[in-house]
């Protein structure tokens, strides 16, 4: 077998979205040797598509503090979030937003020159008493502004990028220490081993599981699947957020900021139906609540359009100035994809697959944690994760809008700091055995097999349809059991799938095949987790188990690839310094 080229770094970062770039910056500024591997040029990462903003209790518009933010996040999580991690995140938020501003993020401004903030769903003053205004925004292009700025600062800090390299698998030694990854250069098809003392997974979400999604083509959960194959479980994968306002039938995201600025939802009777579901905050209830309300309106025959399959989002009353100034991006989207101008016409919307709350289990320092051989939970040596691919868990069963950009900043930075500590304690690289590389290479070489077989595109389309039909906003055991059977069949058929194109140079078919393998493993984690959880909590709504069951189910699920096994661990209900917020009925 030909010798594979090797490069050696202190740290390998997989993924160049907000979490990867924030960690890379921390590390480069500390003079660590960082390799950032991304399957797309960094500014193509999906952080770029985040619109509405990032939460921090700056109190620029109205009174606010991190403790209220913490309460809202815990309530929003339907009490499944870990309260120590949530306290940590909410405390750090302001500092990290100011830091971004110093890095150059072009935040919108208030008349007094401070950062503009808008109200978002599920945020309150004084522990639920009144609406807060906590989401810091750069018009409705906040993700774009943050991602580009973080990339720019990494240029300044001279982080080393491997643009358009795709990670095949993680590499580890016999003792279980992670030592880097096997990647391929997409442009040449050549494999490369990147050896590192620490590996940080920041590969983002897996919205490509579903047919209609706000997520980009690249969101295939590569890092989560790599972790699974390396024996690390995935946590809470049954909790998948459906954003209330995706463009109906198409999926493009219309920011929650549209409702934050004063927009509201209407059914076919022109009724502001959210008043019935959330009498206090109406259209600014938590995302899970609003998505269920929309789905219910449509199911009960009050949907709009010839098929009655969506509702309308009205922002016309805000006036042309507000729309142009605060929501220019979604106006563009409406004009491009719907040929309407939201300044005078309502937008057809429907809940659309958006964000996975679950992921690779970590502690609040970004260290991956797992249980091996039924022992207590322990830190996995050399492996870190943050952002959507990880589960700290700060989002629990339902993420609040504006908390994902915060998550990637806080835990990207925290992981960076923890890695710096690790590097100080581990001055030398551990040796990497060749057989670890061989095993990873097999995953790549499997697709060199020629001959007849099903196409990757066919299987991917089927998988996405299965997920949409069997694991959507409302779920039942019967439907999900069918879903599990369907995924098992797809998993078997995937073994006999073949590529038609075996060329080396920029072979996107081969990348898509590897991505599909990742998606199939994650779909099983999602469906099995959802089938097992016999309660309704946050984004997970069971028609057959309509209430939350804190006695049995206030615990995190853990899916192991080996034997499709599930086990559980308790929620961390003890914050760092303040009192626990005990579970209460969730009313908005």
């Amino acid at each position, binding site marked *: 077998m030909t010798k594979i080229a090797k490069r050696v770094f202190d740290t390998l970062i997989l993924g160049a979205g907000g979490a990867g770039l924030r960690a890379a910056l921390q590390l480069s500024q500390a003079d660590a040797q960082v390799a950032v591997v991304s399957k*797309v040029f960094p500014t193509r990462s*999906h952080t770029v598509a985040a619109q509405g903003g990032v939460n921090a209790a700056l109190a620029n518009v109205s009174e606010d503090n991190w403790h209220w933010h913490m309460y809202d996040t815990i309530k929003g999580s339907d009490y499944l979030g870990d309260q120590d991690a949530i306290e940590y995140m909410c405390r750090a938020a302001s500092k990290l937003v100011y830091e971004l501003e110093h*890095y*150059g993020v072009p935040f919108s401004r208030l008349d007094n020159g401070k950062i503009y903030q808008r109200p978002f769903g599920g945020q309150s003053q004084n522990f639920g008493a009144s609406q807060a205004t906590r989401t810091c925004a750069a018009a409705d*292009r906040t993700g*774009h502004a943050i991602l580009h700025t973080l990339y720019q600062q990494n240029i300044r800090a001279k982080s080393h990028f491997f643009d358009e390299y795709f990670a095949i698998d993680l590499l580890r030694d016999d003792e279980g220490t992670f030592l880097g990854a096997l990647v391929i250069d997409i442009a040449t098809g050549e494999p490369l081993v990147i050896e590192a003392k620490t590996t940080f997974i920041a590969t983002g979400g897996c919205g490509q599981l579903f047919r209609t999604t706000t997520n980009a*083509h690249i969101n295939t959960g590569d890092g989560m699947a790599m972790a699974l194959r390396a024996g690390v479980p995935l946590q809470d994968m049954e909790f998948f957020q459906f954003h209330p306002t995706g463009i109906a039938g198409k999926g493009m995201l219309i920011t929650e900021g549209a409702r934050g600025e004063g927009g509201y939802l209407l059914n076919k009777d022109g009724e502001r139906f959210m008043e019935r579901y959330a009498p206090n905050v109406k259209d600014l209830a938590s995302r899970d609540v609003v998505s269920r309300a929309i789905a219910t309106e449509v199911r009960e025959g009050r949907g709009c359009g010839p098929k009655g399959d969506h509702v309308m989002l009205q922002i016309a009353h805000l006036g042309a100035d507000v729309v142009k100034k605060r929501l220019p991006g979604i106006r563009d989207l409406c004009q491009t994809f719907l040929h309407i101008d939201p300044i005078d016409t309502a937008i057809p919307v429907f809940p659309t697959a958006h964000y996975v709350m679950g992921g690779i289990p970590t502690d609040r320092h970004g260290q991956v944690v797992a249980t091996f051989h039924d022992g207590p939970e322990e830190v996995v040596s050399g492996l870190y994760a943050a952002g959507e691919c990880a589960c700290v868990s700060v989002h629990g069963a339902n993420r609040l809008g504006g908390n994902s950009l915060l998550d990637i900043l806080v835990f990207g930075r925290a992981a960076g700091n923890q890695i710096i500590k690790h590097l100080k304690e581990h001055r030398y690289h551990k040796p990497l055995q060749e057989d670890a590389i061989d095993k990873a290479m097999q995953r790549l070489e499997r697709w060199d097999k020629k001959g007849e077989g099903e*196409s990757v595109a066919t299987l991917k389309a089927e998988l996405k349809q299965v997920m949409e039909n069997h694991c959507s906003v409302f779920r039942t055991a019967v439907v999900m059991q069918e879903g599990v059977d369907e995924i098992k069949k797809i998993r078997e058929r995937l073994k006999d799938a073949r590529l*038609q194109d075996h060329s080396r140079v920029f072979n996107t078919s081969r990348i898509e095949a590897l991505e599909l393998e990742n998606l199939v493993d994650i779909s099983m984690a999602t469906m099995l987790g959802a089938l097992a959880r016999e309660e309704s909590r946050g984004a997970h709504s069971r028609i057959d188990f309509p209430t939350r069951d804190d006695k049995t189910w206030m615990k995190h699920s853990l899916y192991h690839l080996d034997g499709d096994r599930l086990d559980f661990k308790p929620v961390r209900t003890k914050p760092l310094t303040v009192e626990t917020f005990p579970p209460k009925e969730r009313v908005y």
Partner: protein
Amino acid sequence: MRFKIYRYNPDTDTEPYMQEVELKETHPGMMLRDALLALKEQDPSLSFRHSCGEGVCGSDGMNINGKNGLSCITPLAELKEPIEIRPLPGRPVIRDLVVDMGDFFDQYRAVKPYQIRKDPQKDVEILQSPIDRDKLDGLYECILCGCCSTACPSFWWNPKRFLGPAALLQSWRFLTDTRDQAEQERLDDLDGPYKLFRCHTIMNCLDVCPKGLSPTSAIGKIKELMLKKAI
């Protein structure tokens, strides 16, 4: 719908060629990217970059009936048949519609596209009035798709010496940001006959920008500022 697509795979082809293909099924509202994905199902070897599908990631710049644009926000219905698709002009082709954007990104990095502060850092935000913030509109929204620079004849001739419209737009984005404190350094960096002054206001850049930005006016403003500083 009929297409003529630029094809070249260095593994199997000795030279590039235009492939004529037909797409049987189209639907209302279909974008060019949807069509290319459908064509890729017919022939999986067709290679092109794409990701977000809504014009924010900047992956899928290509030359569409002679004009640069993003496939994901180009409605099929507006295109004359046969739809001729080529890679972005003037860049080395890696394969099919995928080009090497190395020089383009090198030039972007060359303008120090990051905020430089010399004052000690505060523990709150640097204040900026809404009017000053408005100056960044039309600049910060750039998605680095490369449509402008690869439509610029000056960039075709001097891709290593002329910074090109995308990089210069970013240069002005930081020059005009009231928070940035490196104005003189930035202007000094642009000195000489090539980096900035190879722009001959041909204005292809603003004609093709999928985000409606105008690098030409940004370049004009840099020149104005230079002049002002020189006298």
